[in-house]
């Protein structure tokens, strides 16, 4: 056994009382001290504090530690912190084990002090057992192709392409439609600045034209993806009349495929009646006319807006859009201001559930009220009704919560259904990219706050409204975030990956192929590396999920950092206390 040779340091954190209020830390330290291979065992008020980290670093250097265990909080919070401690003190970061005695002991067992302490001790023993078997690991270095594919030529994709080109990366821009520009390219006046959407798009296209490192494929689609992180081979189908498929090599992919507008069913809030239109239709109507509005030849003297059509639908309905589309409140308020400034006499009624004109858009909301718009609030469970009389006049009836639930009738020449955003129909692309979708059908990021444009597929980023409802400036911001993330992996020409991946013992492998089906990432293939074919796991494709390990009938696969031997030792460590 190698136990005798290990020199492990164990640190038990009080977490300022979060742990020590329910766990007897002295007992835990004493138990750790008694474990074979442990040369230092200490307690700390806050292990993550500068002084705590410094003390550990000193111990590692002075006591020549070759293993580190910190019993504190969830590894999600601090595994990176303490791996950093190890690295700074000259210890391989993968010799570090985090034991979670806060979430797994003190926070969840507050009634039984000795039981909680016993559990903490057994968890620490398991951590020490694992650490006795750790090995130094080095990050996997992958050479990357310094080109990016941008899928989608809307405002987010166009701006991202320019950003990528400006930091020196090659860009392929693929747009399904024949023209670049997306939604913004169809708008004239846009909120909140009144900037012209078509002009914005024209200037972006002009900028793209001036950058030779950007190759644009319009009327084209991404049809296949092969390769792995840092080096993808992507098939692009171009040419509508005689389609052919090109293959390009890229290091990263930015998906900016945008959104579709919600299309109401006929009869939904009166949709289908002459004079009932959706928000995009209304926007087109405003842009097509100058001065006071008219619809089908009739002057529009009053407009009723019904908010949240197709958004924030009840969870109960299957396929309901439970989410808020975020942009529609501000877009509608902006449209009403636009209309009022053209026609001071037009009457405008806004029937809403909650006004969500967040941030600076609040000012437009105030302006719209000052210009005479009337806002009426209906209850979630009592939506307004749109009806047409024999003479063709439209009336919207609703109960206004702000007027004591009074039933009100609103005569309107035009009823605008304020429709939100829905995910694009993109089945082929979703299939090719293997990107997970959220419950709402939009693409999912890894972490909404900390990794907002990254996806579970390394090197594939999402930007703009394909991720969820966004306005144009938010879309551009996420597009540029995706540019930065591409730069992180492409600019150096190589990228480093976590070495915690599965490896095959080629001698033990019988090439049965079970693991190929078990891998959700397609990272395993049969290859004749030696004389006979065996399973080969791509270091860059493997996510370290461990799915293949228990499937192998020959036990020929091990997961680095979580080897069978380590896991078995941990279980033994846990049982040791349970029996005692």
């Amino acid at each position, binding site marked *: 056994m190698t136990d005798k040779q290990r020199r492990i340091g164990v640190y038990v954190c009080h977490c300022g009382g979060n742990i020590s209020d329910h766990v007897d830390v002295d007992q835990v330290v004493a138990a750790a001290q008694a474990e074979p291979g442990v040369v230092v065992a200490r307690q700390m008020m806050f292990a993550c504090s500068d002084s705590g980290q410094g003390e550990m670093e000193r111990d590692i250097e002075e006591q020549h530690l070759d293993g580190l265990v910190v019993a504190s909080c969830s590894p999600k919070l601090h595994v990176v912190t303490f791996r950093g401690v190890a690295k700074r003190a000259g210890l391989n970061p993968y010799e570090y084990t985090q034991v979670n005695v806060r979430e797994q002991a003190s926070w969840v067992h507050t009634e039984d002090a000795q039981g909680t302490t016993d559990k903490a001790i057994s968890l620490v023993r398991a951590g020490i057992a694992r650490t006795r078997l750790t090995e130094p690991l080095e990050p996997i270095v992958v050479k990357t192709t310094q080109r990016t594919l941008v899928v989608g030529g809307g405002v987010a994709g166009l701006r991202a392409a320019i950003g990528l080109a400006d930091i020196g990366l090659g860009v392929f821009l693929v747009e399904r439609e024949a023209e670049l520009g997306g939604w913004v390219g169809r708008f004239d006046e846009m909120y909140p600045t009144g900037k012209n959407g078509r002009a914005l798009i024209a200037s972006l296209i002009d900028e793209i034209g001036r950058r030779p490192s950007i190759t644009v494929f319009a009327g084209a689609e991404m049809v296949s993806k092969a390769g792995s992180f840092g080096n993808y081979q992507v098939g692009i189908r171009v040419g509508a009349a005689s389609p052919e498929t090109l293959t390009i090599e890229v290091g990263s992919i930015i998906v900016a495929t945008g959104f579709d507008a919600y299309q109401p069913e006929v009869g939904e809030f009166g949709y289908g009646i002459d004079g009932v239109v959706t928000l995009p239709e209304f926007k087109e109507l405003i842009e097509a006319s100058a001065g006071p509005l008219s619809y089908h030849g009739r002057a529009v003297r009053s407009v009723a807006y019904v908010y949240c059509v197709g958004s924030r639908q009840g969870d109960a309905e299957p396929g309901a859009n439970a989410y808020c589309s975020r942009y529609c409140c501000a877009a509608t308020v902006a449209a009403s201001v636009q209309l009022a400034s053209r026609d001071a006499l037009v*009457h405008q*009624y806004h029937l809403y559930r909650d*006004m969500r004109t967040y941030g600076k858009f609040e000012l437009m*909301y*105030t302006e719209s*009220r*000052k210009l*005479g718009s*009337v*806002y*009426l*609030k209906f209850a979630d469970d009592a939506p307004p009704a749109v009806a047409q009389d024999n003479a063709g006049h439209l009336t919207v*009836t609703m109960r*206004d919560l*702000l*007027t*004591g639930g*009074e*039933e*009100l*009738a*609103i*005569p309107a020449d035009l009823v605008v259904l304020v429709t939100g955003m829905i995910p694009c129909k993109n089945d082929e692309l979703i299939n090719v990219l293997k990107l997970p979708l959220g419950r709402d059908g939009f693409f999912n990021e890894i972490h909404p706050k900390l990794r907002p444009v990254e996806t579970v597929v390394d090197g594939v980023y999402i930007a703009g409204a394909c991720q969820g409802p966004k306005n144009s400036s938010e879309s551009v911001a996420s597009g540029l975030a995706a540019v930065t993330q591409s730069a992180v992996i492409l600019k150096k020409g190589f990228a480093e990956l976590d070495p915690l991946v599965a490896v095959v013992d080629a001698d033990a492998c019988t090439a049965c192929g079970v693991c190929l089906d078990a891998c959700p990432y397609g990272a395993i293939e049969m290859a004749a590396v030696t004389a006979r074919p065996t399973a080969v796991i791509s270091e860059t494709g493997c996510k370290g999920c461990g799915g293949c390990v228990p499937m192998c009938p020959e036990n020929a696969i091990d997961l680095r950092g979580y080897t069978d031997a380590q896991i078995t030792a941990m279980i033994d460590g846990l049982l040791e206390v349970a029996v005692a």
Partner: protein
Amino acid sequence: MTAQVDVRLLSDIQRYGAADVSACFSCGTCTATCPLVSEDATFPRRMIRYAQVGLRDKLLSSKELWTCYACGECSESCPTQAEPSEFMAAARRYAIASYDRTGLARLMYTRPIIGTLIAVILAAFFALFMYAAHGPQSTTSLDIFGFIPEALIHDLGIVVMAVVFLAGLAGVATMVRRLGTANAVTLRAVVGSRAALRRSAGALWSALGVESLGQRRYRADCDSDASLAPWYRRRWFLHASTMWGFLGLLAATIIDYGLALAGIKATGTPVPIWYPVRLLGTVSGLLLLYGVSMLIVQRYRGVERSVRHSTAADWTFLALVWITGVTGFAIELALYLPSAPAWGYWLFLFHVAVAMELVLLAPFMKFAHAVYRPVALFFLALAVHE
């Protein structure tokens, strides 16, 4: 019943003031901060809402309009600077104009220049009318009724009173019918039984005695500057001083007339200052003049939040009361002078003309609150007693 939304109401009310109220987004901070809000009367938000949505009937049937004493607390706390207090004042003006069937009030409020012209012309008309019947100006003693015959003033007064009574009654009837319907108060519920009568009497005492004469809530709840000013400079006292002074003068006039009818003292007979009726009139006059002068000064300075906004209607009312008070005192002064000055006669003519006008225009201007507010407070008291 489904009501039709009508955006014209708000812009109509805005002609009576309250230009900023469109900024209101119904957060309800005003209602939360108002010291007078109770379960039986919630405002100003609800009133603003009625105006925004166009529920004219609801608004005009709201006793809440008159439950407010315009302390200005709500305007101070309003997050959108929508000036709810100013809106309440404008809505009261709108209500006065709406209860009035003649359209005169509306004209006076919404066309300040025409309104002022009407006031001047009307005063001039009264003066000329009385001057047409004038007699000699005695120089030995100030024989005012020798100059303008008492009978003429009396008869003219009766006519003016009758007109005011009819116009006022029509307005009050309109208001009572609206408030009665809105608050589900029937005639039977007011006088239908002994219990109802007892309840009504209690409500009447609350409205007229405790709240109007006693100014209980104005004094206790709405005194926004309570900690800043001594009692004699606070809004409630200035208002009470003016009101008590006015009522005292009214009482003195009626008693004087009663004494003449009873043959004890003919109207216009010189009496010493300590003569009870004269004393009542003098003290009342002093109260009135002090109150109204201070109200004018405060409004002019505009420091206090309740008078930060002023309309022509506010000034017209204050000016007419002040002129009536000052000229009355000047006449009293002239009466005690050894020889009768000529200006005393002209001042008397002016005094009577303005006083007539003040009474005649009462239902069509801010003065009308003296009747409408107690009516609303009566309904409020009924609701509270329920």
